[in-house]
């Protein structure tokens, strides 16, 4: 069971960790969903036609990062409203992948590739023999381990490198950046581009796991990742825990469907709903916490 949960949580975790950088830089990044979709399509298209997973991954990361960069540049340089631009990215991802799918593969439905390479599964030698935790380290794709590794790495970048400090300063106090001679805009563009990179990885992991491309393959995962950032208290390890929780909930829903025979169309609504409920509970608790803190002062 833990094994399946880990598989489900990986895209949340990847997109959430990238989104963390933009969130810390003071940009609410609602384009995660679109960037992930762009990544998923590019990964499937390139890996499916070339038969090379690495090439597919590189394409996903590259194209998704390029899209993120363009989005950031448009929003910050052309001073377009950043939410509206992000909305445009999401909509363009839906329409654009559909057009590309038609032009390249002459279908707007599921694209199956004859020679789609299968994703090799790897077990970590020592860790996979620990009784309770072995589900984390046994027979997963490389994407899972990359996502795991990115948790401490992004914590380290955020808290112990100059770049991390700049990112946090961009979100908290941009005058501090200005006095250090660092361009706030540049930091924000970089942060958004980072989210593009991890969303590309997240998208690639989705397509590779399926071995095909399905329209709307992301089905709200970018939004869930965005909420996971908040619920994880904007910290890498927090995001890890929340992603784990959301994945467990989704698995529970899937098995409930198997048992109770709930229709699959209703299943599409479930992740959004559970995320909404999670968000409400979190903000209620957070408000309560703040009030108590106020009282004790």
């Amino acid at each position, binding site marked *: 069971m833990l094994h399946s949960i880990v598989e489900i949580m990986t895209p949340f975790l990847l997109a959430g960790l990238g989104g963390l950088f933009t969130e810390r830089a003071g940009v609410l990044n609602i384009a995660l969903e679109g960037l992930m979709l762009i990544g998923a399509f590019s990964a499937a298209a390139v890996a499916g036609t070339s038969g090379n997973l690495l090439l597919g991954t590189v394409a996903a990361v590259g194209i998704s990062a390029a899209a993120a960069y363009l989005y950031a540049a448009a929003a910050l340089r*052309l001073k377009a409203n950043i939410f*509206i*631009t992000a909305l445009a990215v999401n909509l363009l991802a839906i329409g654009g992948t559909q057009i590309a799918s*038609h*032009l390249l593969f002459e279908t707007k439905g599921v694209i199956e590739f004859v020679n789609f390479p299968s994703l090799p599964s790897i077990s970590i030698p020592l860790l996979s023999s620990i009784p309770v935790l072995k589900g984390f380290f046994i027979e997963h794709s490389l994407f899972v381990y990359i996502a795991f590794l990115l948790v401490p790495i992004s914590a380290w970048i955020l808290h112990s490198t100059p770049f991390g400090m700049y990112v946090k300063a961009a979100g908290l106090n941009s005058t501090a950046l200005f006095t250090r001679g660092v361009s706030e805009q540049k930091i924000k563009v970089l942060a958004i581009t980072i989210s593009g990179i991890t969303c590309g990885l997240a998208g690639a992991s989705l397509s590779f796991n399926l071995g095909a491309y399905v329209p709307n393959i992301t089905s*709200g995962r970018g939004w869930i990742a965005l909420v996971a950032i*908040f619920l994880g208290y904007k910290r890498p390890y927090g995001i890890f825990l929340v992603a784990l929780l959301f994945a467990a909930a989704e698995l529970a829903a899937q098995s409930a469907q198997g048992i109770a025979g709930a229709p699959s169309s*209703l299943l599409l*609504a479930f992740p959004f709903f559970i995320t*909404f409920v999670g968000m409400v509970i979190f903000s209620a608790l957070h408000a309560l916490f703040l009030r108590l803190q106020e009282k004790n002062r």
Partner: protein
Amino acid sequence: MHDTRPASTFLSIGVAIAAAILVMIVTLPLLSNSPARTLSAFLMGPFRNWFYMGNFLNRVGLYIIAGLAMVIAFQGGMFNLGGEGQVYAGALSTTLFLLTVPKLIGPVGVIAAVCVAVGTGALIAGLSGLLKMKWNTDELISSFLLSSSLVYSIDYLVSGPLRNADSFLLSSSEIASQFRLPQLLPPSHLNLSLLAALLLIGLGYKYLFHTSSGYELRMTGLNREFARYGGIPVQRYYFIPMALSGGLYGLAGGLYVLGTSFATMQGSTSGMGWNGIAIALIARIHPLLLLPAAVIFTYLEFGAENAMVYADFSFEFGAVLQAIVLFLVTARFSGFKVLRKKGDRNAALDS
């Protein structure tokens, strides 16, 4: 957020619209085997005959209401991203209500149904506003999540438990004939809802600019801290703009059922939520500009759909069009000298 510097603003909107048309003119023929025919279908869109014109105007009416929904939310400084679900829920609640009271007298049923539609939308969006007020839950995210779960749930209801078995469409049963709005240009779909939309423009303008609540809403949207300092009860203006916005979105869905579709069909109102945002931005979030904004946007969308008929395949060009318009309308092309003059602190929404 209300813009009082018209000249260069209109110019930049004009540039954006022209750019959007240009993008369409370049891309549409590329997707087709007969570029000339596709292009003429795009440009001629609604003007080919009265049937097309009627359907075009009908859609303009619904989009005005969706646009007004976002104008009010934006004026109040709130981001309602849940339009899709609010419209859909408004449509479904109208249908369900009228299906449970098939014997009611026409006008009474219509008025009650409209109230149900508005109430449904207002409830859904108002919840996001309330959560923001109570616990500071981001309304942008919460309204989107709630709306998405509603869209999929309604999809399920319409294609499953509520499906009309006699229809080959994924659709609920149809409402009784006495509830259907008078048609103005049969056989096109144009009906009384266009007039309702025009009336709403006036009402929206009156509310925003000539009532004290509208004033407070706008002041809160401009600067919440300043409004609080001025003695405005800013807390309630988390809820009011959201509820009004959701109510209008719900109304758009309800009127769609009453005048156009007479039933809730799967995905039939899809896109209206996003279009509301695009249209409100083209209108520079001002109610009186909603009519031209809706006409322009609908013309583009209608034309694109027509062009698709002549292309060798069909797909939803809507999302691409929405994206192009959203982006172009808020981008400030600082490279263009004309637009960089003093009046260009425009962009409706700065954050």
